[in-house]
């Protein structure tokens, strides 16, 4: 049953200059209207009229208060300033919040990365000549690398830079697994291209069985194909038949025993 504040509060302060007094009066009257339990109605004009009437009844014929233009203007300006300041404060608050969040993230990231000295070594280790070591060696080296820098670096195992040698320790080679995936995917794409161009749709290929049986078909006494039987035909059916036979035999044995 709450009646919304009428248009008075929504009207911008600059437009309220002339009607300063009557607006405040109307507000008070509206409050009165509320206390008296006036039903909420759609049109905003009605309660105003009622309030006006009731307001007039209550108060004596009093002249409305004199409000100079200057004071109203000052009040309006105050309001404006207040609003602007609150907006600015909100903005700064948001900025602070964002800054704090960023710092938090940076700190977390730093905690996850390798300690500074190893990173320095990696970046200043010279040309990145990508050398692929043999399979076993790579695994052993990766393991070693992980053991060496285990400061909570479990999640960053996959992202180690590729270098030729790390300082004096020539016992391991760091490799980036992301490059290996890329290489594998390219190799797969190349193999798929060859497969498609040689054996894909549009090529005129036949099975080996048909190829070898071509001679048999042209002999004066025609012979069967090289691989005449298709042993893979109806495997499911054959399996079902076998199972059924076994069960039937068991049943037969039981009944014959009785």
């Amino acid at each position, binding site marked *: 049953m709450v009646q919304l504040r009428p248009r008075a509060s929504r009207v911008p302060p600059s437009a309220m200059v002339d009607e300063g007094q009557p607006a405040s009066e109307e507000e008070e009257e509206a409050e009165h209207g509320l206390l008296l339990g006036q039903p909420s109605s759609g049109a905003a004009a009605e309660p105003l009229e009622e309030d006006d009437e009731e307001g007039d009844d209550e108060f004596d014929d009093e002249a409305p208060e004199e409000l100079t233009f200057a004071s109203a203007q000052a009040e309006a300006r105050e309001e404006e300033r207040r609003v602007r300041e609150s907006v600015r404060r909100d903005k700064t608050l948001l900025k602070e919040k964002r800054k704090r969040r960023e710092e938090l993230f940076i700190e977390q990231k730093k905690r996850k990365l390798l300690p500074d000295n190893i990173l320095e070594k990696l970046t200043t280790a010279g040309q990145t000549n990508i050398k692929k070591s043999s399979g076993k060696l790579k695994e052993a080296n990766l393991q070693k690398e992980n053991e060496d820098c285990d400061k909570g670096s479990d999640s960053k195992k996959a992202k180690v830079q590729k270098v030729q040698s790390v300082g004096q320790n020539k016992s391991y080679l760091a490799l980036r697994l992301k490059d290996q995936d890329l290489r594998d995917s*390219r*190799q797969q794409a*190349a193999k798929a291209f060859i497969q498609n161009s040689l054996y894909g749709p549009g090529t005129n290929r036949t099975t080996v069985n048909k190829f070898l049986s071509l001679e048999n*078909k042209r002999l004066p006494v025609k012979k069967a194909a090289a691989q005449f039987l298709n042993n893979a035909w109806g495997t499911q059916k054959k399996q079902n038949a076998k199972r059924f036979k076994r069960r039937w035999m068991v049943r037969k044995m039981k009944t014959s025993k009785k």
Partner: protein
Amino acid sequence: MGEFKVHRVRFFNYVPSGIRCVAYNNQSNRLAVSRTDGTVEIYNLSANYFQEKFFPGHESRATEALCWAKGQRLFSGGLNGEIIEYDLQALNIKYAMDAFGGPIWSMAVSSCGSQLLVGCEDGSVKLFQITPDKIQFERNFDRQKSRILSLSWHPSGTHIAAGSIDYISVFDVKSGSAVHKMLVDRQYMGVSKRKCIIWGVAFLSDGTVISVDSAGKVQFWDSATGTLVKNHLIANADVQSIAVSDQEDSFVVGTAEGTVFHFQLVSVTSNSSEKQWVRTKPFQHHTHDVRAVAHSPTALISGGTDTHLVIRPLMEKVEVKNYDAALRKITFPHRRLISCSKKRHLLLFQFAHHLELWRLGSTVATGKNGDTLPLSKDADHLLHLKTKGPENIICSCISPCGSWIAYSTTSRFFLYRLNYEHDNISLQRVSKMPAFLRSALQILFSEDSTKLFVASNQGSLHIIRLLEGSFKHLHTFQPQSGTVESMCLLAVSPDGNWLAASGTSAGVHVYNIKHLKVFEYSIPDKQYTEWSRTIQKQGFHYLWLQRDTPITHISFHPKRPMHILLHDAYMFCIIDKSLPLPNDKTLLYNPLPPTNESDVIRRRTAHAFKISKIYKPLLFMDLLDERTLVAVERPLDDIIAQLPPPIKKKKFGT
């Protein structure tokens, strides 16, 4: 000679991998062949086409291009994006250099031998400089839109032709820019939907570019103007390879139907000077795609998906017309893939990534000469041993007593101990192999199974004593100073005292195991001197010399030292040193001795070489004991049945 029971074994399911690239080296008359599983084999064409070296394969290495450079250096490029140089002395890979262009599709060496071109997946052509110990990247040429599938240098080294998808570009080497871009017509059997892939290009010194593509055409282009000169439609399927001879008067192309065509430059009329290219001879020796061809001065070499390597000497180029100029078809590897344990009748089969152990079946029936006896107990598949890792197995061996199995890949050596309890087998791995036993080229057990001989690829020979559950390193024979040759073949004498090894430079070293010293040629020579001298005098029977496949295995009969049993892919033979040598007049391949002939004639015609051609094609043959032989055959049809699909051939009436 005696009668034998023969176990005919056909359950070795060996399928060789298809041939992908072939490269011929003129100076040394050697042929490098790379297969789809990454193995690279080197054949010596002057030594009876013997496969003298091989580099084992690797799962990630899919070689697409192979070429020889100056100074007997071999390079290959593959789909893993790396350029690999092979060390032919130490039989390993020297280094692998990433080309940074994605998968490598083609490679070409300039005629001066110092520059290497690589065509990559991203459309770039990269130029490398070949330095004495490595290769160095020089620069990139202009990048093209699609992958570069074939490359060819102009003999002068100023221009290159690069074949791609739907077009061919001609580059100027100095500036690196594309001079011409020739578009190829897509039409294939009346349809223009599929892209036309230029599988091969060749640049001749008069500026003609020859291209072969997937629409079945061979086209001649003029590189100065960038226009098509002549078009030959030769097949209904892809034409996949091209090779030009050194004199540039003939070239050979291979198609996906298995046909190889020979083109020659002939004059238009008999006495005019104008010449034109004419398709002269078709050869149908393959059933599947011919993916690689090479042209030597006297022969055409082709290899493809059907795993045969076919060497066809050209009659007009061969000087001496003898049986040397016949067609050679190399199907089976010249190394041993099977080893046998005589005591327990076990066979160990070596595949690319696993080993299988089988026990031979037995029979109690007896029969006459030539009968097939039924098996009372079938052959048993006892063990299937898989390797870890992507590398192929180089060699494997089982000890004669059957309790040790050893095999080796390029980086590791494995030794296993087998225990037999009442028909069950349990396997135990012997761990902690010593560091020097990293990769072995040949493994052999001694006859009494107490010693293991390992020939490593650094040229040294290790002897290890095998004990109950462990091993003890006995001795290492270091290579002779100055040579780093790798041992290729090993043989041990039955009494366990002598070990013979032959290296890559074809010298034979004999080691005395008891006293751990090295002899050279002494023991076998001492035994052979009288016998071999008579051979030299009389000369071998002419048919014997004409055998075109090399002997793959020799073994000795322990009880009768006069007999030598040897076999190659098509026959096996027992040489009896006590009988006289045959002269040219007698029949070499004598069939089953007729029983009704009189004794005198039989004695006169009997000679030292007893040859039987019943079992072919033979992969392995050995003596199990006094009366039994085992022969492992591999019928060709079984291999063909497991190959990829061939091109459809439409024949009338089918």
